[in-house]
């Protein structure tokens, strides 16, 4: 009797979330999959059908895939490169009393409006911003806005706050005695950095890169604002297909492809990282 009541309680606790996950996540994702095999209705939208045409037609949006799959990894790499020294400073060099406050200061912008922060960069990179300052010192006709460079700057700006904390956590956990041991054994600081610090911080770098990569892959506002329709991502293609040209079945196929690429990349990336960190740890012991 008591056990039955306990099981009823467990069911009651989990039921609301289960409803959300089933009816707002799983069922809609299956509907997207079904739509992706359908055909476009005469007035847009969806008509039932079974065809692979939408998938065979993906190349029509090849440019969006190409931009996303080249710029998103590149931007992730750049973000990690800029974030690492910052995390290193916070974890090992900054005054421990202010460490957390300084870290929160790095993270805070991520939780404020993405729209407004990229809008500020439209002003900064636009013709009245940095290009006009460059013209003032004699460098004329620089165009930044609506180029891949603008999207990369925006990505580093937008995702640095997300990349620093995981690297910080892995560096902070690092046993400082290992650094001393390495120095005592005669290693130069550079060698200590590459052979001890960096390998031990790798899980944090991997975690941060994955978060940033996931968000960049599905981004819409960044390419929309700073790429200005010239450098567009899969997200921009999706908004166009669903809200403007209203070709839902093709849009569904693009969404399925996006999610599939994401999950496959993450799977292989995690496998690669896990194998790397395991051998490193083994080598260290």
């Amino acid at each position, binding site marked *: 009797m008591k056990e039955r009541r306990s099981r009823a309680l467990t069911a009651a606790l989990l039921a*609301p*979330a289960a409803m959300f996950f089933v009816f707002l*996540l799983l069922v809609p994702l299956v509907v997207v999959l079904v739509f992706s095999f359908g055909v476009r209705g005469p007035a847009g939208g969806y008509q039932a059908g079974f065809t692979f045409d939408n998938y065979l037609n993906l190349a029509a949006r090849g440019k969006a895939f190409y931009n996303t799959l080249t710029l998103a990894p590149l931007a992730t790499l750049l973000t990690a490169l800029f974030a690492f020294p910052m995390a290193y400073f916070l974890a090992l060099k900054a005054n421990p009393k202010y460490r957390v406050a300084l870290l929160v200061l790095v993270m805070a*912008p991520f939780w404020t409006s993405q729209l407004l922060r990229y809008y500020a960069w439209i002003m900064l990179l636009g013709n*009245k911003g940095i290009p006009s300052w460059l013209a003032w010192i004699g460098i004329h006709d620089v165009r930044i806005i609506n180029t891949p460079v603008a999207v990369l700057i925006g990505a580093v700006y937008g995702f640095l706050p997300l990349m620093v904390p995981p690297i910080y956590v892995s560096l902070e956990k690092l046993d400082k005695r290992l650094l001393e041991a390495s120095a005592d054994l005669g290693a130069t600081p550079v060698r200590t950095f590459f052979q001890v610090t960096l390998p031990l911080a790798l899980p944090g770098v991997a975690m941060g890169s994955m978060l940033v990569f996931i968000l960049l892959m599905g981004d819409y506002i960044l390419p929309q604002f700073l790429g200005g329709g010239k450098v567009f991502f899969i997200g921009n293609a999706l908004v166009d297909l669903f809200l403007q040209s209203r070709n839902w079945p093709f849009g569904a196929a693009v969404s399925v492809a996006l999610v599939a690429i*994401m999950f496959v990349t993450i799977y292989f990336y995690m496998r690669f990282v896990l194998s790397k960190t395991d051998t490193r740890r083994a080598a260290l012991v």
Partner: protein
Amino acid sequence: MRIYAILIYIFLYAPIALIVGFSFNAGKYAMDWQGFSVEWYAKAFSNPLIMEALRTSVFIAFSTALLSAIIGTLTALGLERVSGWLRTAFDALIYVAIMVPGIVIGISTLIAFVSFFDLVNPWLTSAWSIKLEMGAWAVIAAHVLFNIAVVALLVRARLQGMDRSLVEASEDLYATPLGTFRQVVLPLLAPAILAGFLLAFTFSFEDFIIAYFVAGPNTTLPIYVFSSIRRGVTPEINAVGTVVLMTSFALLIVAQLILQRGQKTAR
């Protein structure tokens, strides 16, 4: 090293300062300073479209935060009591909910709801002459989905860090299970729940892409901001933006303080 850190802070905060600075610009054009003025604040707050969008956004964000905090906490508590395939399934769903890009959540919610409406609307219209359509409630549903996962992870981390002996002590002292929950477990979980509430509020208040797909005829503040940036900016947006930025910074600081204080009392 220190100089690098200072440069990074400038990089992160200069654009925000730019928006705040130009919200006090007397002139009409971006990057063209004409003197100090607060007229754009007055204009923004007397613009009925902005105020309506603000009300919609606050309503959506508050409902999302409340529902996510409750359901997310229930989920974390429930997951403590199960093991095996059910737990694996829930863990997987939580990660899928977090990993699927917002834009795909928006799309899948849109087409699932629209298909559902096409199915039931003819019937509903003939029976009661009502018609279901997209709107604020659809935005709330999609936001809650994502934030249940976030709150569940936060509360679960807190549950796992909790001192079990407190619960045992309470049971030894003949507290009822409900009494133990109310007097021991809930106060210990409160910081994580509150932080989850604030994070969910911020997420929902700031989300553009999901709302863009499912808000139907309703306009949220981010949708309003997006369309005015696309039309060519009005300086009102800087004023609205400044208020939004300051509000979210304030909420974040509160969330952070709560989490930190919570970490101390947990021990």
